[in-house]
């Protein structure tokens, strides 16, 4: 049985962030080894400024109240928690180049890699999830 969970984060909204980091922290808290590959809009989720102001889907803004009521932590806090639990963040080099971003634009402690880096990690992971 695999003890690795591999996640691809390729979307950059607030809901996407919760989907990614909730599963990642839950897996890490269950003694799994977890890595997230952030690509395209997904890079937004670990971008120093971007992650502070992730957008709700259009027309869903009223859920803000529900998030507060359920005491759902803000994304930067979940990111910190994920890293504390040992979740590995891999930022996609190609997307960073396209968007003109460097490691300095992201939270501390990320790795930068290409598709093969992720594929090599994910080859014996179960499950592999895409968001």
């Amino acid at each position, binding site marked *: 049985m695999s003890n690795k969970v591999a996640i691809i984060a390729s979307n950059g909204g607030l809901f996407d962030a919760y989907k990614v980091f909730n599963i990642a922290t839950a897996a890490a808290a269950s003694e799994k080894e977890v890595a997230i590959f952030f690509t395209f809009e997904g890079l937004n989720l670990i971008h120093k400024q971007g992650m502070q102001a992730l957008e709700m889907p259009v027309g869903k803004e009223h859920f803000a109240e529900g998030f507060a009521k359920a*005491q759902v932590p803000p994304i930067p806090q979940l990111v910190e928690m994920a890293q504390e639990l040992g979740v590995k963040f891999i930022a996609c080099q190609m997307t960073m180049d396209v968007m003109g971003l460097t490691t300095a634009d992201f939270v501390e402690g990320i790795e930068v890699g290409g598709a093969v880096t992720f594929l090599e990690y994910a080859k014996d992971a179960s499950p592999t999830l895409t968001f």
Partner: protein
Amino acid sequence: MNITKTLDAKGFACPMPIVRTKKAMDSIESGEVLEVLVTDKGALNDFTAWSAASGHTILEQKEEVGVLYFYIQKA
């Protein structure tokens, strides 16, 4: 039952009860018991699954006035 530590995770939504429980388990020794209080209904199934994944044992669980109590012994 000898309770070493109590974690109050009432009011928190998934995955915080599990994440906080994991952290609290890290702070106690093997064989010691953690008491966890949760109101998240998903915790009923989550804690069972989590104990299977983490190897810790749920000695007892109960529900009292909307609060779930778990007594977990560290592996």
